[in-house]
């Protein structure tokens, strides 16, 4: 796996954090993301937007990270939303039925707005 992976964290104010993913998220790189989200939860930051604009690939291990944290995040009153999925990743998510458990938006602004004006 020589394709690089990066997960950058950016606070957006109002307790919202954006995780920008880049490259290949697989079994080798998933622990990085895991540590990042665990760190956010530790400081009670549970309003998270995962920006996938530059994410090229996601494996089951990568998806597993989100599955592991979605329940604790929601239990703490927060949410984890996805935005800007490329075609391939959108297809994978759709195939697995992830749209039934995660809030997935086309653009970043939509995800941000969804946090600011909570829908029912």
């Amino acid at each position, binding site marked *: *796996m020589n*394709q690089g992976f990066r997960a950058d964290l950016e606070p957006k104010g109002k307790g919202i954090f954006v995780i920008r993913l880049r490259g290949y998220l697989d*079994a080798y790189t998933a622990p990085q993301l895991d540590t990042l989200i665990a760190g956010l939860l530790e400081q009670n930051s549970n309003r998270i937007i995962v920006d996938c604009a530059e994410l090229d*690939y996601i494996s*089951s*291990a990568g*998806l*597993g*990270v989100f*599955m*592991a944290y979605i*329940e604790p995040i929601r239990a703490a009153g927060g949410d984890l939303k996805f935005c800007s999925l490329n075609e391939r990743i959108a*297809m994978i998510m759709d*195939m*697995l*039925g*992830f749209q*039934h*458990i995660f809030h997935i938006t086309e653009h970043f602004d939509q995800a941000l707005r969804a946090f600011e004006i909570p829908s029912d």
Partner: protein
Amino acid sequence: MVVHRFLPLQQTTSSLLLLGISLGGAHVIVVTLSETFGRWLPPLVLMLLEALAVTTSLTAIGVLGWGVIRESQQHEAPDPRRVRNWLRWSSIGTVGMLLLLPSIVEHDVQHVVYLALEGGAILALVGWISHGLLSVFYHYRTARTPFLLRGVSFVFAVTLLLEWIEHLTDVESLKAAKAINVLVLVVLTLLLSRRRRWLRLTTRAERWSLAGWAAVLAGVAAFAAITLFDGQTHQAQALREWFVGSNILAGSLFLMVSTYAVVVVATVVGGEGAAERKAFEFDAITFLSRVASQHDTPEELYQTIITLALGLSDATSAWLYLNDDTGEPRIAVLAGIDVDRAEALMIPELIGRTLERDVVVIPWLREDERFYRIARSVESYAQSLVVVPLADNDTYYGSIVLLSNQPFAFERGDIQLLDAFAPAVTIALANNRLMREALLRERLQRELSMAREIQQKLLPDDIPPLNGWEVVGWSEPAYEVGGDYFDYFWLSGGTACVLVADVSGKGIRAALYMAKLKGVCTALAPMCSDVHEFVVRIHQTFEGVLERRVYITLAAIGIAPDGSTTIVRAGHPPPFASQSKGKVEILSTRGIALGLVSTERFSEITEVTELDHRWQQLVLYTDGVIEAGVTSNKELGLDGFSDLVSQASHLASAAEIAENLRTVLRQRAGEHILHDDMTMVVLRCSTNTKVTSESGLPC
């Protein structure tokens, strides 16, 4: 090595020596002045000059003595070669002093000046020789050395005092006291040279060369001592010109040198053990290389290493500080010591240097600033310590820690030997580890092959015709075992179910879930009448059982007794459907993977869809097929795979289609290692004419 400070001196040695020599020069000048112009000078000035001469001589000798002591302490440890050089040049210098000086003409006009110059030369020689002797005493010291050296100083002081009393009062009856002093000096010298093991650790040639020069020096120094003790000799007078008694002090020193030289000769001539020791070294190394090639357990090897290390040195106990597979270096395999005592010595500073793979030598714990605090409490079993690292360029295997209950138990020769022994030990450890790793790998490989065989047996060999459909499947795990699964089941009421599933993740973990899935399906099938119910009940069984990060996707095709088909797709890549020669349809029905939501939600989301009766071919597969080549950006993708399926659809049977696609996919993968498990099941309606369901006949 930490040099023990006997005196709290701050001045630099060279400035002390320079000052001493300048004062000596001043003394000679003053003597010359008073001798040359004495008869014309008033008595008061003459007296002042004489007082100045005494002051400069005494100060010069004091400062020089100080410099010599200081220089000896800081001097690099004298190895046998340096000691031999010292013995040689001391002999030559002493011979020069004895033969050359008396040839100088007496009763010259400037006789006193000559005497002063000669006395200065003898003093310089004495300073140089005593510097060598002191260096040897300091560096081959024992715990009692400082005390004994203080004794020597005391005897010198008493001797000088007696000389002055004799000089000022003309008392001649102090000879007995002086003789006792000389005797005490000899005894002190013998005690100071008790540490002689280093002599036995040198090579044979070096030992005999040392002994030869020591024999020469023993003789000439004894002769020099006698010459100087006799106050009438030229050399004694030259020294006495500097101050009264200096000839006796210098003579005493020559006596000490002679005594020490005799000790060296005796040690070498009577030295036993050297040959036996060499033989033991040889045995140790051959033994170790034999041990390294045997299938010993690591514990046996460690025990051998410690036994040999103890045999190669004078250590009283030893242990290995081992960096084995556990990741955390630890104290292991102790000999002559228990873990608690060993742990007390592994202070952080020592561990730090040990882990940096340094050779650590602590001649005496009490002198070492790092051990100073604990030195007294461990004194009964630990006074000196050596750590020898066992490492090659890549790997640090550990260190041998050797301990002695005596101070200064490890000589330079011991360290050299242990250092030479370390690579052989390292190779033995490396071999042993490699061998163990190879055995472990072999065992794991065997286990995995067995697991693979068993997993292959979990998949059906031949699938019989199912309600008029020919079904063929294959599966290729990326590793020995994987999480892909395909199978067929008979549900109650005669419906057949063909199923392809994929447990997320890879390897053993996925394989174990896959095996569980097989059991669950086999148990549930007879209790379900349709595919949707079957899949929902599978979900129910797994709810709360799967780890949070794990999910299972599956696609199930139900084949009713009349040959009509239904599909349930739970998060799985969409199957393909086609007529015998036609466009390929992608069956993206609604559904969600198992393990993501509650069974109730799962049942709501996951729908069952009836398939068009015109479709005579169905292809189920796992994502490994469409993702093949993803790491090299040559991913096949859904479209690429649908093209391949379309190209293969003209083939006559499901078996041919499955085999064709398998060959094509294998060719694409080439020599690359599979990224993910690949599985495929091809279903084909056995007859070309679809029979209506009303007829009750399959297909």
